[in-house]
């Protein structure tokens, strides 16, 4: 591997990420999958680093899931997106930041489509007006929240309480980065580092002391694939994709996986349990799994937030081995306490995969 070769490519794919004043739109599913991630994004960016980040409760789904599951036509998705733009216009923002990769892809795809077919944009404006008497401006910048963290990675590193380093040996942690397909595979120039060797996550990992693993199936989809998971008959195909990735990364003995997409960490996390049940195989140390974290969770860990406040207990694969390795303190007794010390109850444990 020639690192300079990658740097050369990264220099070709530099993306304009605005410094401040962001209109933040949340994801439909992440709040259920990883309820603390978006909260901590806001905490880190707005509260810790003092940036201007605006949210509105009128924001809805972008329609991306329905669109990718073939249940709504694109024009419907466009009209939904047009409404989000109108919300942003109302709020007086021009920089859109999405929490979800599919939303990001959806916004980019729609804006590109309008650029190529302006008459379609005109029609959508009419649709939006007819539907809710709203008007919109197109955003000046569309970014993904991971772009923002990438931009702020240096500031986070400066404030870091923990580094991605094995406390016992001083060796950097081996990190698998997994980029959501809709981040840059459609429009390589809209991703930091392009589509083949994106550096949005690897940049964070390296800034925070970790070592990125480049394994053969790095580019491969996590397996969610919308229709593939949502239609049960196709679910075997979905898990097979995930299985392929784990088989490929296994020889590198990764310490964790970092992702920037709603579905990826979910499936890379939960399928480890199913694979273990079906094949008896686990990919982490001594029957454990490989923790699959969101970039916000990882940033939170680095900055010293409490693991249970970050929602790591919601993951199927237990984070304890990773926390021990990094030296992050945690109270096992508080693991299943939610917000305001509410007991969220201990789940049943899997038979094969060790979870704590």
């Amino acid at each position, binding site marked *: *591997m020639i690192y300079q070769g990658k740097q050369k*490519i990264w220099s070709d794919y530099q993306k304009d990420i605005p410094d401040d004043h962001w209109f933040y739109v949340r994801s439909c599913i992440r709040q259920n999958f990883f309820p603390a991630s978006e909260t901590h994004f806001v905490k880190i960016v707005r509260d810790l680093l003092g940036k201007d980040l605006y949210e509105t409760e009128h924001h809805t789904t972008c329609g991306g899931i329905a669109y990718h599951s073939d249940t709504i036509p694109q024009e419907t998705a466009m009209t939904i997106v047009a409404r989000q733009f109108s919300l942003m216009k109302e709020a007086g923002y021009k920089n859109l930041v999405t929490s979800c990769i599919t939303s990001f892809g959806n916004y980019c795809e729609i804006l590109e489509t309008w650029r190529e077919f302006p008459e379609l944009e005109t029609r959508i404006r009419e649709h939006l007006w007819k539907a809710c008497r709203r008007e919109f401006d197109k955003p000046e910048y569309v970014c993904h929240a991971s772009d923002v963290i990438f931009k702020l990675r240096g500031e986070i590193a400066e404030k870091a309480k923990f580094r991605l380093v094995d406390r016992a040996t001083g060796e950097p942690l081996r990190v698998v980065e997994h980029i959501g397909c809709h981040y840059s595979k459609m429009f390589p120039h809209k991703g930091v580092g*392009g589509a*083949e*060797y994106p550096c949005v996550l690897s940049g964070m990992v390296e800034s925070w002391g970790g070592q990125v693993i*480049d*394994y053969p199936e790095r*580019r491969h989809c996590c397996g969610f694939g919308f229709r593939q998971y949502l239609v049960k008959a196709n679910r075997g195909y979905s898990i097979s994709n995930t299985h392929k990735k784990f088989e490929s990364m296994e020889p590198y003995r990764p310490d964790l996986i970092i992702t920037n997409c709603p579905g990826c960490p979910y499936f890379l996390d939960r399928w480890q349990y199913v694979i273990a049940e079906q094949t008896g195989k686990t990919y982490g140390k001594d029957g454990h799994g490989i923790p699959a974290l969101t970039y916000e969770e990882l940033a939170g860990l680095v900055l010293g937030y409490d693991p249970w406040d970050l929602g790591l207990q919601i993951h199927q694969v237990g984070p304890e081995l990773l926390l021990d390795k990094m030296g992050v303190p945690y109270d096992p007794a508080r693991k299943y306490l939610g917000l305001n010390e509410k007991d969220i109850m201990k789940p049943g444990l899997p038979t094969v995969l060790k979870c704590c």
Partner: protein
Amino acid sequence: MKESVIIIGGGVAGLEAASQLLALGLSPVIVERSDHLGGHVAEWYRLFPDLSAAQDLVGRLVDAASGARIYLETEISRINPLKDGYSATLNNGDILFCKAVLVCTGFHLFDASKKEEYGYGIYDRVITNRDLEHWFGGAEDSRIMDNPKAVGFVHCVGSRDIKAGNPQCSKVCCMTAVKQAIEVKEKFPEAEVYCFYMDLRLFGKKYEDFYISAQRDYGIHFIRGRVSEVSEDIEGRLLVKAEDTLNGKPLKVRLDLLVLMAGMVSHPQTARIASMVHAEVDDDGFLRSRDNIYSIVESGRRGIFFAGACTGTKTVPETVAEARAAALSAYRYIKEGK
């Protein structure tokens, strides 16, 4: 005083045209940007289909053209039309007067690192056809290990690829790949050699013989399918994925060396020269001839002629033949006004 012809480019086309013009009693001037004559062929080791040494050909061409005035490491800054010819200003300040201009700017080898998925410049064992020729010629190359178990060739890298901006076929890569595959197999008889192709375009004399020999005598595997992505495994070997389209199944194989058959694209200088002489550029970036059947060497503009790969992808013999044709056309233009 002999009439002068300016030849832009000292590759195969320029040298051959110069020697023909000398024989016809004219005074050619070669203006070459680089520090050597012979163009891309000078960097090659052996040429298909005779496997003759490229240096021999270049040596012959240079000898035959030695009577011409030759500028090396010189570029043309400006070309101005005169009443019955042109004047050309060089970047060294010289001004040349001539009756005709012969554009022999040739081609540019596609930058294989632009096909990011193949990892040229990123993975340790990915090289190009040119790198391999250098190595054949005796140059050191740390990317080529001593005893590779498996070697792959990817055809059409940057050719027939609208996303790479080159819809055209580069014409020579299929044959070069077959030739180089045979040469690799001769160097490493134990290695399995795979050629990943979309179509095999082996159109010339003796080319099919090479293909048959590659299959029959060398056991080279031809897999119909374009490589989609390359990655490195934990041992540093390359994991290459393609579709075996004849089988309709995805296919993967681990290789110790991957050779990318970088294609021919139009030379960046071509457009600059074209604008100086008001020649037209085709949508593939190459110069537009008056027509593509009868008058390939003619530009349609008075006293401006083309030869070689500046008008499209060419083989060496085609380039030589065009250079002769262009020399004769220039001669008749100067002497007979035709």
